[in-house]
């Protein structure tokens, strides 16, 4: 809340403070998130994990500007959020590419909205498509692409406008395991090149650890922050690190946190029986610090 260090040169700081959001329904208000505070430093890669239905998308949509918090504040670089805008790029699980635009047309869309002239749009789109290995597909329509390619276009499209923050809501959830690994690598590459802040929502613990500098773990609905875990793995990261004892320790810790919440989300009766089999084994020292 009070930043002691001088503001860093690059932009893209996200502050979510004491955030709460309720949906109005016929049965009365449904509290999706009860109290969450999340911070993303400029250039940092932060993930949010939690059981399904805990309010991850709700939180991310509030940062995107689609939802207004019932309580608390959401700011980007100190500015309160007032509706969606190109300073926060968003990547959706359902890809959401414009089917009537070619791959290049999709990527150029944000630049067209910025009234960039045709030749600079063209150049920017080509550069980014090259980075994502999509040059050969620039004139194809999205319907003819595989899921992995579609999502690469989705990421490139969101990055094209040069946003300060990239928001991703379970972007690889619909992809097969092999494709997902490649996509994670590509996302890491682009993130390091563009030095952009990332807020990444997922329910895949391995993915969260492998990609992030920090991971927030949410409780079952109404969601709040249960734990914040710093991932001390060095960069660049490699697939082989997923076998290291450090990684496995982090994984075990996060897994038990999540499992506890998932059981809560599925109904309390399971508790006694199921929790018996879960030993919260904290091999990851940093996790022990947090708890």
């Amino acid at each position, binding site marked *: 809340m009070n930043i002691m260090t001088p503001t860093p040169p690059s932009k893209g700081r996200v502050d979510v403070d004491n955030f709460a959001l309720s949906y109005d329904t016929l049965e009365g208000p449904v509290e999706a998130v009860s109290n969450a505070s999340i911070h993303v430093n400029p250039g940092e890669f932060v993930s949010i994990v939690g059981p399904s239905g805990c309010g991850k998308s709700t939180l991310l949509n509030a940062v*995107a*500007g*689609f939802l207004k918090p019932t309580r608390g504040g959401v700011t980007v670089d100190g500015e309160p959020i007032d*509706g*969606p*805008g*190109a300073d*926060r*790029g*968003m990547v*959706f699980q*359902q890809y*959401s*590419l*414009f*089917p*009537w*635009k070619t791959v290049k047309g999709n990527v150029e*869309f*944000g630049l067209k*909205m*910025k009234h960039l002239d045709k030749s600079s749009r063209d150049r920017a789109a080509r550069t980014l498509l090259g980075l994502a*290995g999509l040059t050969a597909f620039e004139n194809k*329509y*999205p*319907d003819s692409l595989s899921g992995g390619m579609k999502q690469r276009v989705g990421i490139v*499209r*969101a990055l094209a*406008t040069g946003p300060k923050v990239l928001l991703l809501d379970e972007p690889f959830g619909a992809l097969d395991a*092999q*494709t997902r*690994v*490649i996509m994670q*690598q*590509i996302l*890491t*590459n682009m993130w*390091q*090149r563009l030095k952009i802040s990332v807020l990444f929502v997922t329910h895949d613990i391995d993915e969260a650890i492998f990609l992030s500098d920090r991971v927030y773990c949410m409780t079952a609905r109404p969601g709040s922050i249960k734990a914040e875990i710093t991932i001390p793995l060095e960069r*660049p990261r*490699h697939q082989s690190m997923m076998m290291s004892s450090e990684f496995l320790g982090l994984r075990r810790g996060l897994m038990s946190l999540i499992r506890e919440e998932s059981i809560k989300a599925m109904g309390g009766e399971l508790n006694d029986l199921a929790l018996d089999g879960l030993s919260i084994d904290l091999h990851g020292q940093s996790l022990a610090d947090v708890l």
Partner: protein
Amino acid sequence: MKVETFALRREQQTATGPEIGAETSHVRTVQSPAGAPPQLAAYLRRWLALNRRGLRAVLIGAISLALFLLAWHLLTENRVVFFIRFTNVPSPSAVYESLTRAMQDSTFFTHVVLSCRRILFGFSLAALIAVPLGLVMGRFRVAHEILFPVMEVLRPIPAIAWVPMAIMLWPTNEQSIIYITFLGSFFPILVNTLHGMSLVDPVLVRAAQCLGAREVSIFREVYFPASLPHIFTGLTVGMGVAWVSLIAAEMISGQFGIGYFTWEAYSLVQYADIALGMICIGVLGLGSSALIRGLGRLVMPWNRT
């Protein structure tokens, strides 16, 4: 940074590598046993294999049409009376004769051209008004709330029922006929445009907003193209109804036009011309629908159907 790009590239290669390998080996097994075959023959064979279904449909369609003509010929030549009476129905050959006569006659062309012109005006006017109206009604609740009740009351009234009213409303006969044609195609276009607007994926709108699009751009870049497939469904249906309405209006109040030609043939006891007029209407309807479909394919290259 060097290391990372290398890692990325390697990942991609391993991902695409096996596919490429499989494909080249597949191609080799197909071509190698043939040695150096005549390229054209092989190409033709493959084309035949791939288009067998289409060819079959064309063949059966041709046979079916020939059988229809044959049945028509036999029924009329033998003046069959079996509850319905074929005594006065012209035979295919009589209609053909009538056609050759009409081809040398400029008044027949005048009828056809005038009908086409009425369709062009009436239908284009309907499209130019109904599509934007549907887009606006689909986007802005107030417009929908105000206009929808009026539309719903007027919609069930068939265009033909408007004939007397149209004659009173418009100063000339020509204008009232165009008005009838307009009415016939207006509602199918409007309803389908509205339907298309209601199906626009809200996530696409969100995606556009995240990319900095404001209201006007969202309208032009998301709502309009997303609704286009349904707009074209509306245009196709609307074109069909436009012909129905036009022919009815021409039969009742026209002085020219292919509908009037058909009706006049009955009054003048030119029975072959009745069938000629009918066939001509059918062909024109078919042609205009095909035109709309072709236009749709041109405008929506992403919509591969």
